[in-house]
């Protein structure tokens, strides 16, 4: 369902050209749980940005549901992200001044879903990530790191995306909290969500069912776990 063919990404800093991704080709199917691992500088974040339609490759093609995203303009990419993609970030990126519920409903602001429906969807998503109801009306900065990340997962989940990208989701969490977050991802995958996990921690990657290792902008290995 997503497929990239010989994706290359080159950054230019002054006169220096840096090749971050070098002819990467891969395919991820529905219901997969993939971990993309690699040391820092291996290009895994750049790969995630391209797969997440936040960035475009310098060369190569990226197909999302069979459509060539290279032909998409800015608004079409935004629409793709809104409808098909959910993001979970290392630093949660919640709005501190908003309640948990409002944070989760944020992606729905940009789609034409009626108010009553939004609250229902947000409640379902929060319930799915296992956050207790008593927290729904708290400001997001009153929660623990693990709770915040689960709110962020609920936010990624709320518009029922085809694929969820998680960029180092446990990077800011203690072991126990991080375990809880990974359990949530596993549960979501069992429910049928496609999940792409970017991490540099091998034991976190062990939660996935397939592991793609990147090194110096190229795929080093691609194995089922």
């Amino acid at each position, binding site marked *: 369902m997503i497929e990239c063919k010989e994706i290359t990404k080159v950054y230019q800093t002054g006169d220096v050209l840096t090749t971050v991704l070098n002819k990467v080709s891969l395919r991820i199917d529905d219901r997969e749980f993939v971990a993309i691992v690699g040391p820092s500088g291996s290009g895994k974040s750049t790969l995630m940005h391209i797969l997440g339609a936040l960035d475009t490759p310098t060369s190569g093609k990226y197909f999302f549901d069979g459509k060539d995203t290279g032909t998409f303009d800015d608004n079409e990419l935004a629409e793709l992200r*809104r409808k098909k993609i959910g993001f979970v970030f290392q630093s949660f990126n919640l709005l501190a001044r908003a309640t948990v519920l409002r944070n989760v409903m944020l992606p729905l602001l940009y789609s034409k879903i009626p108010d009553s429906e939004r609250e229902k969807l947000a409640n379902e998503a929060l319930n799915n990530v296992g956050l207790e109801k008593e927290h729904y009306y708290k400001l997001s900065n009153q929660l623990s790191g693990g709770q915040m990340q689960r709110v962020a997962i609920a936010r990624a989940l709320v518009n029922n995306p085809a694929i969820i990208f998680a960029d180092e989701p446990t990077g800011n969490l203690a072991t126990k909290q991080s375990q809880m977050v990974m359990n949530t991802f596993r549960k979501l995958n069992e429910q049928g969500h496609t999940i792409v996990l970017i991490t540099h921690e091998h034991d976190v990657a062990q939660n996935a069912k397939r592991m793609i290792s990147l090194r110096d902008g190229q795929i080093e290995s691609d194995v089922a776990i």
Partner: protein
Amino acid sequence: MKIQDLFKEIFSAISGNKGRSGLTILGIVIGIASVIALVSLGQGAKNAIQKSIQSIGSNLIIVMPGAQRGIGAGISAGRGSAQTLTLADADAIKSNISNISGVAAVVSRRYQVTAAGNNTNTNVIGTVPDYTTVDNETIATGSFIADEQVNGSSKVAVLGPTTRDDLFGSGAEALGKSIRINNQNFKVIGVTTSKGGSGFNNPDDAVYIPITTAQHYLAGGNYISEITVSAIDQASMTTVQADITTLLLARHQISNSASADFSTLNQNDIVSAASSVTSTLTTLLAGIAGISLLVGGIGIMNMMLTTVTERTREIGLRKAIGAKRSDISLQFLMEAITLTFLGGTIGIVLGWLTSLILSRLISIQGQVTLFSILLAFGVSTAVGIIFGYYPARRAATLNPIEALRYE
């Protein structure tokens, strides 16, 4: 993005930083309030001046003597100094010109007037019975000068209420009492109604005596200082003015109107001249106040740029979850417009209050017009759009990846 969602977002952003939002709004409040207050006072001053000109009478044409010139010497003693107008001129105007409702010849000069141990320096106006029609004068007690008193050069006087107060005490009975003008006794036969007014050119501070009396006992000579003619309506003023000029030129045997020994003045001209002066002043004041509005607008831009920088990660996130550029720029632009609109609303109320308070402190009655309110709303919204556009554009064009990494 739905409108109500947009406003919820904006409300949450503005109320999330109350102190800064408040201070930024204050800049707009001060700008709008000063524009409203100053324009209101300018409008009030304009009305006051027009009212005071109208209170002299309506549809007036004033004929004044021309400048006195020494023979062959080309030295002018100033307009109005020549002794070229006589009572006969006034009579001729009255009997020959059509479409007029009254002609009042006037000899006026300031004299020291005394009565019962009090004295005042006031304008002594020698005139005819028609003066009441022409100059909108009404009598409170007693009567005005009558024809017989003009014909007989009677030593009678009608007092303006202010002069009455000065000479006999506030509201005191003056009828039948005697006053001395230039060491001659005059009997008070009436007091006029107050026209209101104050200061240098107070119409209530005057003494009226028969014009012949003024010529014989005070001024000397047959000359008069002014003829005031009232036309029957505003439309006929120009014709009446032209007719008077033709008549007087003929009577004075002057063929070239450029060398006329008199001049005529149309009340409409005075009103429009005064109005244009106050309009210019009002525009000037509003312009100065507008500068503070500009400064307020820069304040808005400054705050919005700070906000965009502070919320870089939020913008990145919104883009990542599917917000279009237009969603982002609309949100920040509307935030700026909301700030200026709030400032504009508070500014209008504050400006209105300021104008009310100032109206009580000074004699000008400020007037807030619908136009100035609409203008204030328009300007404050425009300030929001102009100064919000750049920050909003900056927010919309942020690269989402860099925005999400922003520390």
